[in-house]
């Protein structure tokens, strides 16, 4: 016959201070790992969600990013008419030539960062159709106007709608703010490509080309044709793969988070074990009585495990809530978390505790509960009723 659930729960309430301390330990471990884990997954999410699987990025061969690539004008004029490139209603190819420059920007908190400024033409909004202007309007060419990503807008001085933004050699008026479903475009500033080239004194206006493949077109064939064209050494890749590659630098951080979770988890398990051992010790007489009354070893074991798992669950709930709140506070205080991707430009990341982070925290808490409770529960179950009662 199993012990009623009220028994372990009642015990937790009866020894309030001890229960609270153990719950706090587990909660702290959950907060620490969740916070760190969500930082890495937010970063990864931002980078991976950038790029459209239907888009190709064309760079000069050997360039690992936009910033170090140069695209000859003739190459642009030729590639955009390749077969397989989508066209808009007016028959214009959906090919967006872009110039990337990384000037210094100053953060609200006094830092100086390299920010990715993308010089584009009007067609860019059609190729990157997840980029939506949510405030203001698109810039007009040759008026020194800029549109700013949501993340960059909150982080840098002069980047709000209506402000005058100073970077490079000139000043630009911010006429719009855009969003792109949380992708890393939101950390960028977009201006007219020709104005940017003039400002940066770049001999060629473009560094790379983004193409939208036509529906049903064979993307691999298009990639092969661009790569194989012997007139220019170009290299095409899927936009989503390009950004996935950029996010690889986050993988080493995952390793740190994993190590942190394991070490902290083992520590918390020790703490939980300790508490429960003490509980078993102080309840010897009770356990002996229960056994004498006819409760089986299994039901005692189970009851103690339930006690431990309840503590872990409480720790998880408190910890997850605190982590979510803390994450929000940290993120809004710092105006997003900056992270340098391998291109040295800054990605602004919103720290958000995601479902995956919570699942990981739940697994950790469950392991702490089970392993922390197992040894003391076994000891309780193995107590011989006669001895336990005699000592009491």
């Amino acid at each position, binding site marked *: 016959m199993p012990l009623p659930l009220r028994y372990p729960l009642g015990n937790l309430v009866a020894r309030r201070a001890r229960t609270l301390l153990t719950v706090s330990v587990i909660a702290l471990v959950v*907060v*620490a790992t969740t916070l760190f884990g969500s930082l890495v997954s937010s970063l990864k999410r931002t980078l991976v969600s950038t790029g459209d699987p239907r888009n190709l990025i064309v760079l000069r061969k*050997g360039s690992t990013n936009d910033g*170090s690539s140069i695209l000859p004008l003739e190459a642009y004029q030729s590639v955009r008419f390749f077969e397989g490139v989508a066209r808009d209603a007016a028959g214009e190819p959906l090919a967006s030539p872009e110039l990337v*420059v990384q*000037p210094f920007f100053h953060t609200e908190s006094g830092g100086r960062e390299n920010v990715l400024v993308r010089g584009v033409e009007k067609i860019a909004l059609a190729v990157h159709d997840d980029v939506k202007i949510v405030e203001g309007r698109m810039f007009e060419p040759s008026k020194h106007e800029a549109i700013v990503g949501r993340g960059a807008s909150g982080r840098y001085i002069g980047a709000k709608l209506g402000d005058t933004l100073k970077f490079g050699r000139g000043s630009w008026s911010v006429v719009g703010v855009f969003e792109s479903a949380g992708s890393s475009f939101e950390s960028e500033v977009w201006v007219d490509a020709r104005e940017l080239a003039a400002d940066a004194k770049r001999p060629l206006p473009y560094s790379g080309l983004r193409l939208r493949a036509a529906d049903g077109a064979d993307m691999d064939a298009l990639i092969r044709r661009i790569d194989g064209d012997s007139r220019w050494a170009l290299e095409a890749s899927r936009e989503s793969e390009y950004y996935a590659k950029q996010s690889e630098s986050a993988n*080493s951080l995952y390793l740190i988070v994993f190590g942190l979770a394991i070490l902290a988890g083992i520590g918390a398990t020790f*703490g939980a074990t300790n508490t429960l051992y003490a509980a078993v010790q102080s309840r010897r007489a009770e356990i002996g009585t229960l056994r004498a009354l006819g409760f089986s070893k299994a039901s005692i074991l189970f009851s103690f495990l339930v006690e431990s798992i309840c503590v872990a669950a409480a720790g998880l709930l408190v910890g997850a809530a605190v982590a979510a709140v803390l994450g929000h506070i940290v993120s809004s205080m710092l105006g997003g978390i900056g992270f340098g991707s*391998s291109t040295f430009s800054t990605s602004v990341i919103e720290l958000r505790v995601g479902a995956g982070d919570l699942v990981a925290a739940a697994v950790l808490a469950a392991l702490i509960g089970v392993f922390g409770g197992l040894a003391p529960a076994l000891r309780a179950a193995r107590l011989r009723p006669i001895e336990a009662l005699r000592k009491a």
Partner: protein
Amino acid sequence: MKYLPFIWRQLTRNKIRTALTAGAIALAVALVCLLLTMPAGMDNMLKKLASNTRLVVVNEGGLVYGLPYSYLQKIRAMPGVVEAASWTWYGGAHDLDKGVEFPNFAVDPEAIGVVFEDYNITPDALEAFRRTRNGAIVGRGTLRTMNWKIGDEVALKGTAWPVDLTFKIVGEIPNDRAPHFWFQREYLDQALRAAGRNGLQTMGIAWVRVDEASRVDSLLREIDDTFRNSESQTASETEQSYFKNFFSMLQGLITVILLVTGLVALCIVFIAANTASMSVRERFGEIAVLKAVGFSRRLIFGTLLAEAVLLSTLGGAAGALVSFGITQLLRGASGWNPSLGPLGGFVVSQAIAVQGLFLALFVGMISGVVPAFGAARRGVAETLREVF
């Protein structure tokens, strides 16, 4: 000291609990030490590698904007300047499929050795570098990872400039934190002219060595003032503040790391406090007996507190040792990871290990003080009545 055996016996009487508590504290202290290495590594690098008397002059707009090369001569002529040298990014890739694997710059061979005196490049290597037009001087780490040695000829394909160049490695930069590949500026200039382009008229960064630290501030002002109204305005700062700025974007990451460290430290306090209160509670009877036979309150308080402190210090010491060992292992594994910057250098220094130890000591005191005080204050008669 004479009570040490007594304290030790108390600790060893519930071996499982003591071991678990010490283990938990050890793990937590190890974690704190490991986490602290990241921001500490950054400070360290700034202090050790970045010089206070070396200035960085870049275009105010950003690194990519470049500066006219003629600025270098003007800076050299300023009072207090020992020497100035330029770096210009070449973006050479050994294998185009892998991209740029190490930073490579066109530099001024006459000046570079003086400006980067602290890199300890041998005079022979510098001399060979000056004499060899296509000579290159390469960081030790890069030589190792690329499997090159002095005397090798290597070909790089330019990604920032449209010329491919072949170099002869003539020396090494004996500094593990400088994976650079330096070659003569003139070589790139001539190659560009041969390719029918204008020669090299710009530079990316001007490095300036100042004779005395006290002149740094005025020189920084002078440089920026001199170029204020010319075509390219400059932003000058010391190497230290330059790197600090360069990595300032990691500030958010560091905040999170420090926050997590604080949480883990708090965690240790709770674990230790829990143990201390449990072991004191179980001993109320004994403590009452001790008092009844004449042991003073102060002594009881002292021994109980000492017990908690000893336990957490032992745990902390073990933890600090473990973290020290882990970083020694990791050290070999971590290479040049530009996205982590100086956070990538996990090294638990002695200072951090000592910090961890003090943390444990502190935790022991905090965790022991309340239960020990309670036990010492508890009335004898009352307790004994409960027990017997």
